[in-house]
Every structure is written in structure tokens, then in C-alpha cells.
């Protein structure tokens, strides 16, 4: 019996099932309709809860296996292992927050340039700039004129 990564995920799932079950009692019960709007989600939550418990039991019975590809416990190696993934998360989140201010054209251009430079290194910034202009500008033209999609303009840039 070993408490491992799967056990933690299983516990999170069990807690999430419990939380969602509680939240399902907040669903308003109308006087009409045959099936209560809460019935189907509750049925799924019960199944999810049972499966999570089974997963937890299964995880305890599994031998603890060290995945050679995963980082060791030091914080530096952890961040260096996940560096690119966290970079994409952060850059994408910032892009989404700034999108109403920058607009889709400028926002995408900045997003592409920063992401390319963070992932590929700042030395090739000129090349990354050209790629960002080419891809973002090309897609903007394609969607705006060929597909006639109204892409959002930024409140700061007006573009």
C-alpha cells in the first residue's frame, strides 16, 4: 500500500464529486417537467464519486513507480521541467486579459512574438517578429475579409 500521485488525484476527484453534489442542491426545482434538472447531473456525480473511490483504492494497491521522465523534487528542476508549459499558460492568460484593450490584431501579434521568443530564445527576435507579423496579419486578413468575421478591436489601440 503506497500513497502516490494517483491517490492524490483520486482524493481531489472525490472531494470535487462531494462539492458538486452539494452544488447540485442549489439547482432550482421547477414545478414542471418530468425529469428534475438536478437529476441527471446527480446521477453522473454519484457514478463519478464511486469511480473516484475505486480509483483511490486501485492507486493504493499499485506499486510506487518512479517515472524517470518526471522532475526530481527540487524546485529548480520542477520549474525547468515545466518551464515551457507554464510560459504558455502565463502568456496566454495575460493575452486574454489584455485582449479587450489591445484587440485581436495587435493582441495576437504581441502574443505570437512573445511566445515565439520565450520558447525559441530572444536572440532570434527579428525572425520571430517577422513570423508574428506574417501569421497574425495573415490570419487577421483571412478571417476579416475572406470569412467576414468581425474580430474584436482594442479599446486602447482602436485596431
Amino acid at each position, binding site marked *: 500500500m503506497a500513497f502516490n*500521485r*494517483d491517490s492524490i*488525484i483520486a482524493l481531489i*476527484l472525490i472531494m470535487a464529486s462531494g462539492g*458538486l453534489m452539494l*452544488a*447540485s442542491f442549489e*439547482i*432550482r426545482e*421547477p414545478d*414542471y*417537467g*418530468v*425529469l428534475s*434538472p*438536478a437529476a*441527471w*447531473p446527480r446521477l*453522473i*456525480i454519484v*457514478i*463519478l464519486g464511486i*469511480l*473516484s473511490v*475505486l*480509483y483511490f483504492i*486501485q492507486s493504493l494497491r499499485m506499486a510506487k513507480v518512479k517515472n524517470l521522465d518526471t522532475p526530481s523534487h527540487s524546485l529548480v528542476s520542477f520549474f525547468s521541467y*515545466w*518551464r*515551457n*508549459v507554464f510560459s*504558455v*499558460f502565463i502568456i*496566454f*492568460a495575460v493575452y*486574454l486579459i489584455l*485582449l*479587450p484593450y489591445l484587440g*485581436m490584431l495587435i493582441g*495576437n501579434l504581441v*502574443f*505570437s512574438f512573445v*511566445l*515565439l521568443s520565450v*520558447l*525559441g*530564445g530572444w536572440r532570434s527576435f527579428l525572425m520571430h517578429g517577422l*513570423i508574428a507579423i506574417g*501569421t*497574425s496579419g495573415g*490570419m*487577421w486578413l483571412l*478571417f476579416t475579409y475572406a*470569412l*467576414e*468575421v*468581425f*474580430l*474584436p478591436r482594442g479599446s486602447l489601440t482602436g485596431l
Partner: protein
Amino acid sequence: MDIFIPAFLNIVDPSTLIFMTVGVGAGLMAGSIPGFTIAMAIVLTLPFTFSMPPAQGLATMISVLVGGLSGGLMSGILTGIPGTPSSVATTFDGFPMARNGEPGLALGIGVWSSFCGGIISAVLLVLFAPQLAAVGLEFQPWDFFMLVMFALTVTASLAGSHLIKGLIAGAAGLLIRTVGEDDAVGVGRFDFGSDYLLTGFDFIAVLIGLFAFSQLLSDLRNPASARKALSDQKQIFVKIEHRRAIMILIKNWVVVIRSALIGMFTGILPGAGGSIANILAYDQTKKAVKDDSKFGKGDPRGIIAPEASNNAVEGGALTPLMALGIPGDISAAVMLGALLMHDIVPGPTFISDEPVLASSIYIAFFLANFIMIGMQSGMLRIFVLVTRIKTYVLATGILTFATIGVFALHNSVEDIWTLFFFGILGFFMRQYGFPLAPMILGVVLGDIAELNLARALAIDPDPMLFIARPWSLFFTIIALFSIIFPIYQKQRGSGSLLEKLYSPLMLLGLSIPLFMMGGMFRTTLATAALVIGAYVIWRRFNGRRLKQRY
């Protein structure tokens, strides 16, 4: 003719042909780049098709699919790295043949096998989809509900040793679909006072996030490999040897047909796609030949089998989609999304209610295979160019495209947030071994399941009907056996009781609903299942006694 001509005109419209050609090209590229899957290409095509008429949109998606299924062989044969999981087995003999100095022949065999597999499955789709739809007309809400449950369990069971994770993913997919206003009575669920949650997650944004975004994150995870190009090959001077390849295919027509049938059947099963079909067909071909010593060293049959089968998969996957509204794999699930986006709900009446659209799908499927043959040679040069692009540049471009594409669905920035959240979720699911296919099916089929549950209970509140009706019992039995399947697979060769009883008990079990259905054909089928099941049990237990006696 009243149906065929307008359908034909839909597809041969110049703009549709252009979109199909671009689609096949994009599919060939996506399929040929390791790490960028066909499903991802299809998912990313979806926003483009929003502004198109349904027939044109579906024709474009089918073209991407056909191109993608054939694209994997280019990379597999020329570099030894399969472009998609559907062409893993192609590399077993394709790469050795290319290294033996015959890359043109290897590509030719692969291309023409893909073409034959695609055409055979297109013919079978045209023949079988209406028949299956006729059977589907017998289905009542109880049966549809159990059919969805069966689709989810069988998809989860394909996760093998991760069955529980697969089932959890499926249940989570169903749950994700419940967020927002309930379709039947308009009551908000799990909105926690947020307008964003009250509108629910757009399921296409969810699909793109779960599949495409998470895949890109996985491709970028390793900083060293993210900065590398997929190949440093400068030029490829290969001339595809069409004539010799066709002659070899004619000589091995049995392999072509058998593999296409394997692909078609695998495609019909929910969740089982080209990645299983190509290995299965390769294995069956190897077992069927008298001399398998050349396999793995460049045997043409080792290219024919996987390529004919993986292209036949889609005809199989489209069959339950068109006939029952249940997708056979992720690509078909995305196509279901495309249909729903145009307010077309596929089901048993789809082919009769929308005959022109259904025929357009058939014609597009045929035509896309011809376009694929025409384009494959030309795409070789572009393939070399694309593989020289560094992974992070390609991934950034695709991510930017996905973002605009998701926004274009409803002109909503919230959908991009959905893409982001589900991209993160999908990435961690991949990292922790949770299969994505059951979750995607859960998201796509969630509404259908709830709708049929509500309808069933409105007709009769007796829950026993979910297992007492012939078809629902039929699906319940297969669903149960699909859950046990991974355990059975683990115990194969151990001589355990489960191993001995699994298949005969399934046959005996299935004979019950078949008897309940009545009719000459099904009663005969039920009797055969009963007799075979009983015989296998008798044989397996008496066989041991006989062995002990002598």
C-alpha cells in the same frame, strides 16, 4: 436522381472543390507531421466551416480527414517516424523498403492502398448506413440512452489498464455538458452566479481546448525538442511509382479487401480508430500469409494492410454517425459537432430527412480520395518544407489560429477562455494517463443522453425498462462486457475461468435480447449465438477433462 444531382452539384461547386483541395492538402500536412494528429486538424477546421453551407463544411472536413489518414504514411515511410498513430504499422515495412532503395514504390503502395481502403469503405458506408438507420428506427429513448452508455464504456475500455481513468473521463465529459442552462426547462446548473457559466461551455471550444491546445502543450513541454525541426532533411527526390504499386495491389487484392474490412469494422466500434485498425490489419495479414519471413524487412503486404485499413476506418466511423447519430471516433464526433452547429441533428431519420446532405457526404468521401491521390506527389515537397519548421514556431502558429477560430464561432472572448481552461485540463489529463477520447465523447453525447433519459422517463417512469427492452438490454450486455474486457485481456493465456467464459457468456447473453426482438433473421442469429456459446463452454471444460484422462 432527384437526390443525387443536387448533392453532386453541391460538391462539384467550384468553391467546394477548392475547399476540398485545400482540406486534403491540410490533412496530408497534418497527418505527416508527427505530434500533430488528424483529430487536431479536424477540430481546427471546424471554426472555418461555420460560415459555410452544411454540405460544403462537411465536405471540407471529410477532405481533411481523408488527407490526414493518408498523410501519416509519408513521414512513416521516409523518416521512419509515423506521422499519426494510424500509420505506426506502415513504418514496419515501409521504412525498410525505402531504405532498401525503393522509397517511390513504398510510397506508391501506401498511397494506392489508402485510396483502395477509402473507396471500399465509402462503398460500404453507402450500403450499410441506410440499413443501420433502418434498424435505428426501432430504437426508443431507453435504447438510445443505453447506446450512449455503451459508446462511453467501450471507449473507456480501450484505455486498457486505465479503465477506471477512462470511465472517470467519460463521466466528467457528461458532467461538463450539464454546466449552464438546462435545455428542457431552462434552469441554470453549476453556474455559481456567473453569466459565463450560465451560458454553458461551447462544446467546440471544449473540444479544441481538450484536444488541440493540450496536444500543443505536450509538444512544447520539452524545451530542447521544441526548438528542433522535425527533420533536417534538405531535399527528397522521390518519384512515386504508381504503375508498379497498382500491379502489386492487384496481386494482393485479398490483403486489400481483408484490411479494408478490418478498418471498416474497427471504425464502427465507438472509440476504436485507425490507431487500432492498422496494427490489427498488419497482424492479421502476417498471420494469414504462408511465409512471413519478409515482414519487417520491406514486404509490400506490410504496407498494404495498415494503409488500406486506416483509410477504411473513417467509412466505418461515419456509418453509426449518419445512421444513429453516434460517432465512431473523435473525428466523427467533431463532425457531429459540425452538424449540430448547423442545427442538423443526426439520427436514424437523418438519411431520410436530409437525403441531399447525406448523399453529399457520400460523394465528398469518394471525391476526397481521388483528390488525395492527385495531391500526394505534389505534397511531398511541401512535406519536406514543413518538417524543417521548428516545432515551437509551428505550435505558436497553430495556437494563434485556434484562438481566432474559437472566437469566430460566436464572436465571444469567453470561448477563448473555455479553450484555455480545457487546454490546461486536457494537458494534465494526458500527463496523468487519463484518456481524452471518452471525455470528448461524453461532452458530445451528454445532451443526447440526458434528452433520451428525460423522454424515456416521461413515457414510462419504470427504470427497469432500461434493461428490459430488447435493444437496451443488448447495449447493456455489450457495455458490461466491454467494462470487463480489459480484465479479460490481462488474463488471456492464463487459463482462468474468466478467460474461458468471457466470449461464450457474451454470446449466450446476447442471444437473449436477440430472441426477444423476434423475426426470422434475429431468431436464427440468437439460436446460432446460443448454440455456439454453449458448444464453446462444453468444449473448453470437456477439453480439459479429456486432456486429463489421456
